[in-house]
């Protein structure tokens, strides 16, 4: 029974926020808030103070300005599918949920761009322009439900980003509410190369720590003339990894080049979208090439040759769109499928030079043995973006910590070969400490200095992205708090 919400609270902030967004657009009961204590990263849970649902930029700005004046911490949230805890209210933040700002504001086919509100769901964009022959390229596996605002914040990637680039390559302009409530516009709709600093670049991937995105102009592409998809099974992971390197060395730029290992295959085959992969193989590759029809056949033949040379057990080309779609559904639901073989999982997100793939996969296998936890691998092999999924059961005392340590060890393995600790899922809460694997103190400071320019009182999404202590910000905040007393 949906109760008519009447504000039953003595909290003046709740009342004031409700006055901005309306009584129905604010949550503050513990039960409701409990649903917001996590995003896709479930290891740490914190209750927010409240959740508000603005309808437009102005309301967002008004909320932010109120919160900032009253020294209340806050953060933005999209669909809450983030995997590094970016939307977890570490400091009891007021969550500003952007899911009600979900309109497609404009589609400009001539200039190949579209303007969306931040709560607009990634796949909905492609679905609503595909009859006109267009699509939005960044395709995170969570595209059925994640928001484009969240994609901008995390600089999301996806299977087809190997050829087409990640989110940042598709963002042409942003409207942003700054942490003190001002509305600014960055990037002049689709005009390339605005003079001055590349603020679009800084904002994209800033994990919601510099401002709240309220409008986004994105690039849209025409559908490629043709697509062909290959599925190859390998008895040996090393052969599969070599095939990945070989394909790229052949001069082919596949639209997607994905790999799954045996444990991952076990999961997807016992979940909702099985396709009948053999269960005794060590690796499978899902390879897609697209573009103008001429030349596709030749690329496919080269790929088949490479696979043969690398001792493929069997390899086939998708016969029709249905088969292709089934392979992709199986791949794209891979993370969720872990639920079918394990109560919890922790997904890591390291990037390595492609050539070190066999070596790093070997190391991950060792880590799995050292910690006694199973690790599945589903990843964007083409760009060396690994996703080790550490399987554990949080109900067993101590196992969560073990999983975290194993995850960290995987990232260390990536850093050791000159790689990075995140490809697309962000740092969030999860990988703050691991930032030290790849950055010196000085380098981290240079970045926190940038944050200070945008977010001087450090009320917006504090405690994320950089290792603690959050030095300057914390001090400033305390200073401000002291001054206001």
């Amino acid at each position: 029974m949906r109760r008519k919400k009447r504000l039953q609270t003595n909290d003046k902030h709740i009342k004031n926020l409700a006055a901005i967004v309306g009584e129905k657009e604010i949550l503050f009961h513990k039960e409701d808030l409990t649903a917001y204590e996590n995003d896709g990263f479930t290891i740490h849970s914190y209750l927010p103070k409240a959740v508000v649902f603005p309808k437009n930029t102005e309301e967002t700005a008004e909320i932010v300005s109120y919160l900032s004046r009253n020294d209340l911490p806050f953060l933005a949230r999209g669909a809450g599918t983030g995997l590094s805890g970016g939307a977890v209210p570490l400091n009891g933040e007021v969550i500003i949920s952007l899911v009600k700002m979900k309109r497609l504001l404009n589609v400009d086919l001539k200039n190949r761009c579209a303007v969306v509100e931040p709560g607009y769901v990634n796949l909905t964009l492609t679905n609503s322009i595909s009859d006109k022959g267009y699509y939005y390229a960044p395709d995170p596996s969570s595209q059925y439900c994640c928001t484009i605002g969240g994609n901008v914040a995390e600089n999301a990637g996806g299977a087809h980003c190997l050829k087409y680039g990640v989110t940042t390559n598709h963002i042409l302009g942003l409207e942003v509410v700054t942490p003190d409530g001002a509305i600014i516009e960055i990037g002049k709709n689709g005009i390339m190369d605005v003079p001055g600093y590349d603020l679009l670049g800084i904002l994209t991937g800033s994990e919601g720590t510099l401002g709240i995105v309220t409008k986004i102009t994105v690039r849209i592409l025409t559908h490629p003339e043709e697509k062909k998809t290959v599925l190859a099974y390998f008895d040996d992971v090393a052969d599969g990894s070599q095939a990945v390197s070989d394909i790229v060395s052949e001069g082919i730029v596949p639209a997607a080049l994905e790999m799954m290992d045996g444990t991952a295959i076990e999961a997807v085959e016992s979940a909702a979208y099985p396709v009948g992969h053999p269960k005794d193989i060590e690796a499978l590759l899902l390879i897609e090439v697209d573009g103008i029809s001429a030349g596709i056949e030749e690329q496919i033949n080269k790929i088949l040759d490479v696979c043969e040379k690398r001792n493929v057990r069997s390899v086939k080309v998708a016969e029709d769109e249905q088969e292709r779609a089934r392979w992709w559904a199986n791949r794209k639901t891979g993370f969720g499928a872990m639920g079918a073989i394990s109560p919890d999982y922790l997904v890591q997100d390291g990037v390595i030079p492609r050539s070190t793939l066999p070596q790093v996969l070997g190391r991950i296998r060792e880590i799995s043995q050292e910690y006694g936890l199973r690790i599945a691998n589903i990843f964007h092999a083409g760009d060396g973006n690994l996703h080790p999924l550490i399987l554990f059961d949080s109900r067993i005392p101590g196992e969560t910590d073990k999983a975290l340590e194993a995850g960290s060890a995987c990232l260390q393995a990536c850093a050791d070969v000159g790689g990075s600790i995140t490809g697309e899922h962000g740092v969030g809460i999860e990988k703050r400490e691991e930032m030290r694997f790849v950055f010196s103190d000085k380098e981290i400071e240079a970045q926190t200095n940038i944050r200070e320019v945008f977010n001087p009182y450090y009320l917006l999404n504090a405690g994320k992205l950089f290792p603690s202590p959050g030095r300057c910000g914390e001090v400033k905040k305390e200073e401000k708090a002291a001054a206001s007393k």
Partner: protein
Amino acid sequence: MDTDGKTAFEEPPCSTSQLSNYLWRDKPDEDKWADCVHCGMCLEACPTYEITGQEQHSPRGRVHLIKAVAEGKLEVSEPFTDPVFACLDCKACTTACPADVDVGGLIEEARGQIRQAMPLTGWRKGVSRFFLHGLFPHPGRLQFFGNLLKFYQKSGVQTLVRKTGMLKAMPEHLELMEAVMPEVQEPIRKKYKHETVVKADTESKREIAFFSGCVMDVMFSDVNESTINVLTRNGNDVAVPQNQTCCGALHVHAGDRDMGRKLAKQNMEAFKQADTVVGNAAGCGCMLKEYPELFREVDTEWREKAEAFAEKVVDVSKYLHDTGYDKPTAELNTRLTYHDACHLAHGQGVRQEPREILLDVPGVEMVPMENADRCCGSAGIYNITNPEMAEDVLESKMKNVPEEVEMISMGNPGCMLQMAMGVKKYGRSANVVHTVQLLDWAYQKEEEQRRQE
């Protein structure tokens, strides 16, 4: 023992795990929520999330809250009840979830706990008892009530009631429901009272037992009639067991799992002889298939019986598709669209079969409906208990119904009533029909043509 359906829970509340705030037996199943990895892939599938945008009204949020109570972080309280009872039981999340989390099952178990911790009071109790205990399990009363409503509508009583303002006490949509209610006819079960088996028209190839449904048999007995016609026409002997009863879905959705178990037992007994149980109401079929869940924790013997029973249950469209049917030759010349009833598409995985049947009727042009498998908001008595949300869901559904169709076909009486309300409310003209009716009409026309030749 279990004759009044009460024994299972009459003992004092007991807690088996120290932390859990679920105090009664038949708790939400830990194995079900342990599968959820909080990925959010179910969000967009959920109609109540679409409308509210609120996480606690999403499948993921619901699972999380149910788990939070089990972990002792929350209590079974009014604000917990809200998201749990606002779920439509549409099972769209089950289709969307890559980990196969049985969200619906968890929700029903949680409702069972809530109803025991916080029994209904006041008018809600009255309405619930009236429908769930007083009416649905009793075919005779149901028919009487149907007739009464019609009498109410046609005689001057309706006007009188309106004038005196009595309707204000009645939810608005009950008015709408009464307005679209089909003419009450003679129920199948009454009609075939003296025949144990309705014989196949020609040579009999198979024998099946027909589940006639309770509301279905009173309000939609013409659909039941069509179903029997179509089955017998295709070589099936059709038994209509007299002691069958309401499937119990509405009771289970409302958290009354005791009554659910009682009805389940009666039905399993009634269909003991049958090898195949065919139904035409997706909601009922789905419930029959879920009987094992009701006995999961409380009774091993009945759970096993229920498992065997569930195997025998099949929807009429799938049954016809799998066993074969004559393609009609007469043309029906109509343009229609097909709505996937949640409990057929998400609940039983039946999507293609009814579409194929419709397309096998000559002259049928099918206009695809966008988001055809989105809930229409009927969900049992949901629209009585959650009128606001039900209205929003219906509105969103009606937006997807193509303008230019003459008929909307589907496989569930609950949906038929709800969609008929939608058609009326939004000024549409399409007729709402059951899939087997079309096939039956085509056969009838064929007969007629043959007779005229």
